[in-house]
C-alpha cells in the first residue's frame, strides 16, 4: 500500500489508532521477576527473535525467569533505558514500536550499548 502522504490513506485502510501486532504486550506492563503471567511466553519469543534470549526454544513458559530479566536489562541498555530488568512503562512503550527485523544481538554479540554477549550478561546478572 503506497500513499503520497498520510491524508491520502483511505480511512477504511487505517487500523484503530496505533494498532500493531505488539500492542497486546502493553498488558504486561509492570511485570517483574518471579511472576507468572499469560503472555510472557510471547514476549520471550520477541526477545529471542531480536537476539536477547540466546536459547533455541520455541516453547517458552509464562514465567518471568532469569533469562527474561537478563534479556530486558540488555534491551534497556541498548535503548538507553533504565536497566530495571522489569517491563516498566518506558520499556513497554519502546518494545511496541515498529522496528527493523534485523536482530540487535547476532550470534550472542552486539556492539550496541550493552557491548557484551548476552551469555556474559546473564553471568553478570546472576552475580
Amino acid at each position, binding site marked *: *500500500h*503506497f*500513499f*503520497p*502522504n*498520510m*491524508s*491520502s*490513506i483511505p480511512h477504511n*485502510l*487505517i*487500523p484503530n*489508532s*496505533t*494498532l*500493531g*501486532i*505488539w500492542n497486546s504486550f502493553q498488558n504486561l506492563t509492570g511485570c517483574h521477576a518471579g511472576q507468572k503471567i499469560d503472555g510472557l511466553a510471547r514476549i520471550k519469543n520477541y526477545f529471542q527473535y*531480536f537476539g536477547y534470549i540466546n536459547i533455541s526454544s520455541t516453547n517458552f513458559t509464562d514465567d518471568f525467569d532469569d533469562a527474561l530479566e537478563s534479556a530486558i536489562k540488555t534491551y534497556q*541498555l*541498548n*535503548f*538507553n533505558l533504565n536497566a530495571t530488568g522489569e517491563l516498566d512503562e518506558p520499556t513497554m512503550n*519502546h518494545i511496541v*514500536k*515498529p*522496528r*527493523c*527485523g*534485523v536482530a*540487535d544481538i*547476532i*550470534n550472542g*554479540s*552486539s*556492539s*550496541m*550499548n550493552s557491548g557484551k554477549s548476552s551469555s556474559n550478561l546473564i553471568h553478570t546478572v546472576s552475580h
Partner: protein
Amino acid sequence: YSFFPGTPRWPDSKRDLSYAFQPENQLSDTVKAVFARAFLRWSEVIPMTFNETSSFADADIKIGFFSGDHGDGEPFDGVLGTLAHAFSPPSGRFHLDSAENWIVAGNIGDSTAASAVDLESVAVHEIGHLLGLGHSSIESAIMYPSISSATRKVELVSDDIQGIQSLYGSNPNYNGSSTLTTQQRETSGAGS
C-alpha cells in the same frame, strides 16, 4: 555504530553496485525514486555508487515487498511490528513488509494515520545493513533499530557516517558539512 559479526563488507572490486526491484511488485516510478534517494544518501559519504538495473537476476541488491512467510526464514508479521529486513554483505537481499501503509512522497502530512510508515526512512536504514552496518544505540542515528510510525528520519548523522566510512573510506567529494552531527541535531532539535 556496529557491524555484523566478522565485519562483512562488499569487496574492493565492488564499488559500483546495481540494484533491481522484484518484477512481480510492479513498483511505480515514484516508489523507485524513493529508493534512489535513499541510496544517494549513502553514496554521498562513501566512494560507492548505486544504479538501478532492469536485470533482477544479475543485480547486486535485490529489493522486494513481501507478506508473511516469503522463504528466507524471517516471515513478516502484518501491520507495524517488523517493517523490513536486509542481509549483510554480499547478500544484497532487501525485503519490505507489503502489509504496511508506506508513505512515499517524503511528506508525512497530518498524523491521523498512525499506522503509516515513511518508506525512505526505512530504506535508508536497511541500505545501512546491506552495506555492513549493524544497529546503533544512538537514537538520532539512522541505524537505530526502531522508528515510530508517522515519523520521517532520513539524514545520516555522524555515528552512521563514521561507521560506514570505517568500512569503505570517505567519498572524495564529501565535505562533511552537509549532514548534521548527532550533537548538532540534538542541540538544534532538528531531525526525527
